[in-house]
């Protein structure tokens, strides 16, 4: 069985040998990067600088929460607001793989700039097994290029260190628990963020829509979990579809977008069941999304696909 304590001790030891000087960590505030930061911090202390990039594709209040986590953990940190750059880079981009590659490269270029300012030559990433497995290479087909693996440009000037490479999320959660980190229960939120929850071009206008829709799905499900109406899914969010349909709002015709509700149960994201959300909860989600987003969204659908054949995120 996976032994969290032993893994922590051995990894800290290895990191001390491996890192000579300063290192950056790509810090999204999720379980993987937070656990990784804690491990590297134990190994090299203040020589580690946590870098959080606000891509503009973050969830509601995300970057604020991340800032808080970095303070609480006592990490040396940098906070980079790059939303304008990311929006510009993704203009007119529709293809999901293209989006992921552009985002991956943008992240690296930003880290390279920070590394130069900080005189760091290592980049630590919270990459876990499904990231490199799905990114493909060699005999393995590319399912999707995870921004931190398949999305990396070839000419990187930093040495990449990935202490969690062979682990799955449930094992990383065990580490979080052992390290007494409060992020333990957070649901996964992939690096490309809301950009891959908008099918087609991820415009600023659509980001606003999907951010609100994701917030509503999370909020309603969190409440339902607290009320004992359902158990907490592995991951739960909204996807904005480019499909428009006819609706009627207060005796007037509307022609808005469609939001898909997606929730899955899993332990490692390698296989997933779609979550059987009670209809009463789905109804609250649907009503709140359409009332809040008014003429922008007038239809909500529920994704009932397992993985395989689907993947968790739509892109």
């Amino acid at each position: 069985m996976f032994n969290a304590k032993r893994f922590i001790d051995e990894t800290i030891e290895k990191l001390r040998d491996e890192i000579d000087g300063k290192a950056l960590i790509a810090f999204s505030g999720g379980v993987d990067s937070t656990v990784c930061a804690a491990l590297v911090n134990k190994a090299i202390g203040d020589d580690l600088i946590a870098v959080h990039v606000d891509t503009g594709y973050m969830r509601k209040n995300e970057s604020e929460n991340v800032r808080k986590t970095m303070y609480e953990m006592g990490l040396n940190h940098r906070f980079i607001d790059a939303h304008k750059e990311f929006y510009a880079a993704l203009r007119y981009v529709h293809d999901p793989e293209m989006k992921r590659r552009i985002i991956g490269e943008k992240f690296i270029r930003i880290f390279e700039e920070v590394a130069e300012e900080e005189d760091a030559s290592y980049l630590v990433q919270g990459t876990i097994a499904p990231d490199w497995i799905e990114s493909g290479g060699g005999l393995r087909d590319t399912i999707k290029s995870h921004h931190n693996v398949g999305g990396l440009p070839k000419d990187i000037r930093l040495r990449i260190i990935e202490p969690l490479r062979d682990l799955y999320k449930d094992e990383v959660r065990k580490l979080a628990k052992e390290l007494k980190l409060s992020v333990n229960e957070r649901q996964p939120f992939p690096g490309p963020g809301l950009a891959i929850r908008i099918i087609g071009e991820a415009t600023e206008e659509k980001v606003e829509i999907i951010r609100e829709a994701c917030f509503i799905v999370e909020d309603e499900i969190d409440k339902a979990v607290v009320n004992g109406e359902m158990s907490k899914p592995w991951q739960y969010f909204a996807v904005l579809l480019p499909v428009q349909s006819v609706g009627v709002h207060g005796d007037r015709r509307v022609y808005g977008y469609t939001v898909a509700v997606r929730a899955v149960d899993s332990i490692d994201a390698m296989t997933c069941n779609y979550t059987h959300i009670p209809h009463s909860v789905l109804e609250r989600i649907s009503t709140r999304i359409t009332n809040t987003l008014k003429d922008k969204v007038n239809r909500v659908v529920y994704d009932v696909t397992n993985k395989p054949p689907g993947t968790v995120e739509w892109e």
Partner: protein
Amino acid sequence: MGVEGYISVMTRILVVDNGGQWTHREWRTLRDLNVDAAIIPNTTPYQRIMEEGVDGLVLSGGAPRIGLDGDLGNCNEYLEKASFPILGICAGHQYMARYYGGLVKPSKTPEYGKVELLVVEPDSPLFKGVPSRSIVWESHNDEVVVLPDDFMLLAESVNCKVQAMQHKTRPLYGLQFHPEVEHTEYGEVIFKNFIEMCR
């Protein structure tokens, strides 16, 4: 007894990587069951495997159609020379069938995700403790349509006749479904049975 002595009594099973999405998951399941497990490329010479010492092999699944034609790295050499147990999964299973004279074709109805498995040979050591009906998860475009002469059928599903097979005299097993994923109900039991045979 020192650390070295401890390692030497652990069962060593190698996972031959044919490029599957769940190759690493197979490694993890074995490791979780306290097996000394490692992933090796399917181009590893048999000689090297023997030098390192091994008690059993798992032939992983692989990218679409890899079991249909052509070679699967050095899997042919492993099947020809090995005296230890081998478990083929998905493309590994299809290749095993083809190597022994069976036939693999694109599935009329491919299976992705949840499927009900029906065990037809409950006495097989691989299915010890697995009920006659259980849930397994699948992900395949092709399947074994003609069982090789030296093999017998162990399990089937509504859409796929050859879900599991076993060589009549040698410890060779093939599974179309994936025992390594979380959602396969008795996956761990099947792995434990395989490990038992490797001891």
